[in-house]
């Protein structure tokens, strides 16, 4: 344990922000981390942590980002244009939301709901000038390489490109091209990026930010397909968890949904409290 642990961070959609609270708690408890493996928004948070930045400021920045861009994110929280019953379904399932948004005559030609322009400026500002050697903890971002059809860990690539691949949720943002690779986020493949980890990464500590499976009975075609997608994701997560040496499950954030960006501060503080409690139990 002297080298530290490989920390695995996941969480679907906005729920990745819970990693802020988690990392604050780990920092306070002086847990030694040899490598961070993350995907989705957790990869952004992980990068900020790896640079030694103040995570309270990261929370403020995210809150500000979502407030500034709210009008572009109309689909993420307001779910405008959807019937009430579908809105409830979309709130519960990221997969359903993406399919519902992309599944209509006009949109079936679209590759993505949001453009990269929305986030590129902020990413450049935060990470554009950062060289890999400036990271105090190595950061591996998990993504799906569409050209090979495999989950892959990005460890050497330029940080901004790595992070873009981490948040390129299929259907939400366009895929990211890095050299020969065409990449999307692995979040929808598995909430926890454990697939590519090996024995050399042990001890592996996983922070599970669970999603509640949609409790509603699937009725329409898209609901059925999205539900199947979720079931498969849950099964894969269950399989991959056997690789972990230690799992900290943040059950208290289960109730937050994937798109609740207005609840960022609450999500972060609940995650931190829970992580403090779990680490307290361990020590």
């Amino acid at each position, binding site marked *: 344990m002297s080298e530290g642990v490989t920390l695995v961070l996941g969480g679907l959609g906005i729920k990745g922000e819970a990693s802020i609270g988690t990392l604050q708690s780990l920092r306070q408890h002086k847990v030694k981390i040899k490598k961070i493996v993350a995907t989705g928004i957790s990869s952004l948070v992980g990068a900020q942590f790896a640079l030694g930045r103040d995570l309270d400021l990261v929370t403020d920045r995210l809150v500000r980002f979502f407030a500034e861009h709210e009008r572009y994110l109309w689909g993420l929280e307001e779910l405008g244009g959807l019937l009430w019953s579908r809105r409830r379904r979309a709130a519960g399932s990221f997969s359903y939301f993406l*399919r519902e948004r*992309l599944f209509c005559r006009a949109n079936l*030609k679209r*590759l993505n709901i949001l453009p990269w322009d929305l986030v590129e400026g902020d990413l450049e500002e935060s990470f554009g000038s950062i060289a890999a050697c400036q990271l105090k903890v190595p950061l591996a971002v998990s993504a799906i390489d569409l*050209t090979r059809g495999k989950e892959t860990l990005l460890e050497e690539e330029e940080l901004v490109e790595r992070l873009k691949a981490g948040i390129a949720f*299929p*259907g939400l943002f366009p895929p990211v091209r890095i050299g020969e690779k065409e990449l999307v986020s692995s979040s929808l493949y598995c909430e926890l990026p454990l697939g590519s980890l090996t024995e050399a990464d042990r001890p592996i500590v996983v922070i599970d930010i669970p999603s509640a499976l949609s409790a509603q009975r*699937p009725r329409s075609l898209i609901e059925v397909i999205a539900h*199947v997608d979720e079931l498969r994701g849950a099964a894969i997560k269950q399989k991959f968890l056997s690789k972990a040496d230690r799992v900290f499950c943040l059950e208290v954030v289960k109730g937050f949904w994937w798109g609740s960006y207005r609840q960022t501060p609450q999500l972060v503080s609940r995650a931190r409290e829970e992580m403090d409690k779990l680490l307290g139990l361990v020590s």
Partner: protein
Amino acid sequence: MRIGLSLGGGGARGFAHIGVIKALREAGVPIDLVNGSSAGAVVGGAYALYADIERTIAKAEEVVHTVDVSYFNMFRYSMESRPFLRNWLVSAICDLSALRSSILSHKNNLRALEMLFGQYEFSDTQVPFSSVAVDLLTGETVIIKEGKLIDGVLASTSIPGIFPPVERDGRLLVDGCVLADVPARELRQEGAEFVIAIRLGAEVETSYRNGFDLLNYVDGLKGRELTQWELDQADFQITIDIPDFDSSRFDNYEIAIAQGYKVTKYALPDLERKLGDSNV
């Protein structure tokens, strides 16, 4: 030692299972129990019922020539090659998707399964047989081994989105391939001590044109990962690749049967060695 045969799904590729069973029986490999998902459940159920591969082939041919069970998976067809059909399907599905749970009904499937299984029950099969489906409400795989064969197999063949889920005993059942493409683990639960798993090789569709394709691509990768998990539970696995074969059209069944037979014949020496090592 009880030898079990676990048959995977794959639409019309499922006919390859007939060739597999034929080759195994010719070589004298005993089959003490069978299970399957989707097309594997159809062929497995038919073989388990008749325990006679020639009769199974005759029945399959009769069904194919009587009922049109072909289906189109619209997302697999390119805009260039089938513009009219694809656009028509897309429009029709968009209009109906809010109301319907699937593109097609079970009408033709039920006719085909009725011809194959009649009113026979799982308890009537000469070889113990179970079909595997997935319950959408609990996310569990469900082993079906009681009741009418037609009901159990229908649930196992309900491809999500293409066919409606089947309600049974408070469950909402869909194709076993969702979580267990080749249900080797489930066959072990049924008492198989040596599991031969037959996987119908089908590559994940890697081209995409829109966000919906991308989501399906990632979903396909999940299916592949879960299949590998199941295959790891088998003692011996055979993968039947049938190049350029369309899984949604059932009229080329002879090609699939021949390929299944050929690949299994090729794999037999290894299988016999493995069985010998296991003192079978």
